[in-house]
């Protein structure tokens, strides 16, 4: 053991020699929350475009009825991988990137609590992405069971499914470590005087999100481990002949899956709750009720999972319970929307790009919330299950919800991060094109779903042709509009545009605006005083 200790000492000495490595090694070995936040955001943007290319493939095939480009099973790979990459590769890492950049600055800390583990949380993601993308090139192709990888489809597919399962395991480990880090940072590293109820709402929403992640990512790991052993080691978890049940997979999956949708929206609520007061030049209306609403949403998320399974079969009492508990979530969500609107009420508002995205978020996300409420009604859901109505619903909450909030947050904090103002005209173009094309893409899907078009099919009946063509045109436009976003971010990061003042937004009042733009390497070397 003494030898081990010497070895460790030697290894440490080696580390010390490599003090602040430069070039690529700076990014590989970094323990700095801002570097790691940047890595997360770049990774997320890359995956967003890879997932977007898959969506292009889907919408190109659906542009007209009949089979144009892909074999039907490859189409299934496209929809599955589009979902997995966007959920685990684009949206979740983007929010963790925000958490890394913002939480230490907003609570007055020098860095994250576990700076080395923070590095690992990020550097697990590229291997996972590599596993996912490699699965396209193995015999049998990528996972094609939908992003929900329901058994028994997932227990039957080729080696691509194994790669997908391992990728999910690794991304799960990354999320759990990231969340433990975030919880510990928030609970243990706040500046003196920063009581819990003084924390910015973005910090609050991430605290709750991190708890959700620690609670449900291991459950997903368990579920996919059972799939793996059913596939290769002869267990019978999802095989009725052995006393198991494929429906059990759905229960375990959605016990993870429903909280997962809040994992992807609560940080978005947090961002919007920072942006709206800044541009309405009024403090957030109903701060405490926002905190309680977020907590209630998180708690309720554990008891509603079977609303994804109304058509799988369950006792009437179960249907009623899951229907009403799901509808209950509309109450705290309504509180939030009310508070955002009340914050804007009689404010002296200006509409810079972050505010445009935030207001757009409220309008379009609320639509997604309403269709969610409609889908919660069991008899309606039985009609609409697995139709394009569902596709419309969750793209309204995930694109117009999560993604728009990510854009709002990026434009909001980009001046802080880079020290330069983004191009306002470019930002406005990005917003309006995104908003219009988003609705052109997904609004017609409501009609398609109500008319009975099923999701996850490469071909469809003639009567769905017009709306599909409109949706495809919208999707191409939406995808191309995102290049404006890249252009805006790159221009800003390379130092174009006006130099940003420490506080470019008049109404912003959180701690990060007291730092220089860009902020110093270790955010708060000495803790700020919070009154």
């Amino acid at each position: 053991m003494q030898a081990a200790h010497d070895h460790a000492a030697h290894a440490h000495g080696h580390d010390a020699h490599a003090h602040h490595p430069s070039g690529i090694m700076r990014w590989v070995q970094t323990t700095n929350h801002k570097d790691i936040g940047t890595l997360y955001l770049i990774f997320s943007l890359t995956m967003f475009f890879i997932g977007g290319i898959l969506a292009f493939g889907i919408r190109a095939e659906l542009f007209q009825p009949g089979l144009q480009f892909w074999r039907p099973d490859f189409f299934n790979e496209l929809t599955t991988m589009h979902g997995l990459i966007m959920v685990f590769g684009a949206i979740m890492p983007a929010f963790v990137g925000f958490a890394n950049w913002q939480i230490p600055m907003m609570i007055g800390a020098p860095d994250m609590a576990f700076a080395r583990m923070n590095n690992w949380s990020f550097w697990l993601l590229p291997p996972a992405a590599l596993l996912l993308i490699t699965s396209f090139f193995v015999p049998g192709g990528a996972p094609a069971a939908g992003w929900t990888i329901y058994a028994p489809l997932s227990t039957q597919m080729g080696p691509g499914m194994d790669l997908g399962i391992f990728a999910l395991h690794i991304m799960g480990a990354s999320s759990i470590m990231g969340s433990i880090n975030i919880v510990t940072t928030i609970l243990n590293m706040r500046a003196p005087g920063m009581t819990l109820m003084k924390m910015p709402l973005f910090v609050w929403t991430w605290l709750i999100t991190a708890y959700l992640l620690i609670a449900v990512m291991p459950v997903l790991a368990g579920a996919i481990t059972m799939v793996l052993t059913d596939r290769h080691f002869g267990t019978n978890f999802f095989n009725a002949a052995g006393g198991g049940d494929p429906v059990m997979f759905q229960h375990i999956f959605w016990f993870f899956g429903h909280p997962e949708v809040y994992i992807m929206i609560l940080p978005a609520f947090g961002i919007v709750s920072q942006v709206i007061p800044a541009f309405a030049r009024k403090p957030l209306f109903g701060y405490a009720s926002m905190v309680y609403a977020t907590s209630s949403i998180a708690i309720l998320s554990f008891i509603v999972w079977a609303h994804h399974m109304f058509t799988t079969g369950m006792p009437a009492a179960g249907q009623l319970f899951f229907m009403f508990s799901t509808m209950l979530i509309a109450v705290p969500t309504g509180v939030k929307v009310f508070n955002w609107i009340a914050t804007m009420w009689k404010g002296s508002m200006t509409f810079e790009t972050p505010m445009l995205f935030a207001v757009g978020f409220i309008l379009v996300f609320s639509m997604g919330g309403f269709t969610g409420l409609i889908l919660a009604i069991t008899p309606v859901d039985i009609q609409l299950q697995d139709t394009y109505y569902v596709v419309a619903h969750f793209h309204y909450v995930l694109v117009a919800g999560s993604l728009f909030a990510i854009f709002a947050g990026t434009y909001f904090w980009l001046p802080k991060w880079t020290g330069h103002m983004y191009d306002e005209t470019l930002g406005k173009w990005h917003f309006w094109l995104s908003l219009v094309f988003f609705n052109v893409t997904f609004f017609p899907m409501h009609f398609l779903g109500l008319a009975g078009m099923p999701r996850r099919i490469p071909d469809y009946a003639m009567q769905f042709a017009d709306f599909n063509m409109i949706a495809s045109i919208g999707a191409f436009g939406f995808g191309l509009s995102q290049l404006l976003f890249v252009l805006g971010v790159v221009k800003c990061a390379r130092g174009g545009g006006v130099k940003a003042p420490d506080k470019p937004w008049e109404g912003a009042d959180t701690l990060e605006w007291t730092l220089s733009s860009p902020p110093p390497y270790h955010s708060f070397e000495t803790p700020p005083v919070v009154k």
Partner: protein
Amino acid sequence: MMNQSARYFIPDPSRWPIFGSLALLSMAFGAALWMNEATWGKFLLIFGVCTLFYMMFGWFGSVAHESEGGSYNKQVDASFRGGMSGFIFSEVMFFAAFFGALFYMRVLSVPWLGDIEHKILWPDFIAQWPTAGPGVAERFTPMAAWGVPAINTLILLTSGVTVTIAHWGLLKNNRAQLIIGLALTIALGMTFLFLQAFEYHEAYTALNLKLTTGAYGSTFFMLTGFHGFHVTVGTLMLMVILGRSIAGHFTAEHHFGFEGVAWYWHFVDVVWLLLFILVYWL
């Protein structure tokens, strides 16, 4: 040397995480290849596991070095406590998924398979736990609770006491008590693992109880197997702590490394109690 801010320790850039990522990447590709009949996948898997061990050796070595070097103040200590609690909570949820599967099969899916609708498909199936399911013809004997498993329960409960005795030794600066307590705990952990290996051997040879034995076999081996894996990891962790105790690490005031491992050991203990009641006994 350190980027020691006024109040909090921030480690220097580190090369360990990327080794860990490389390890998991090799393990994932290796396991996937191996499971799909590419024999060389096994070597990639082994390479990954070795890299992971190398990484943990180096990483935890740095942590121990920094800790003994006095870099960690009270606030860092509190962070470690928060982090370890979060980790154990995540482990609880991982086991919850498998206990949930056990509950679902025993209470829901097996009774459904014996109901009137399924009589057409499987007329002879009697829905009774333990079962290998209606489609698995092989006979098996379930694992009895009051033999080796009961002894193992006693062993793990005793080990919970010995690790606490070691903690008391540390608190009153009695290094001998600390070392003996830890050594006893490790010995008990290893005995547990040995008995479990024996039990598995019995299951496969005498009882015809296998991983493939339907619902019962799946839940039995996956739950006890993951628990056994955790006992193995816990024992390794205790060995590291024992080595550090012998090397003179830890003081009565500053010993989170010890406490974290002790927490983990108690967690493994509690999971076993649930296993004993829900898998073996009831």
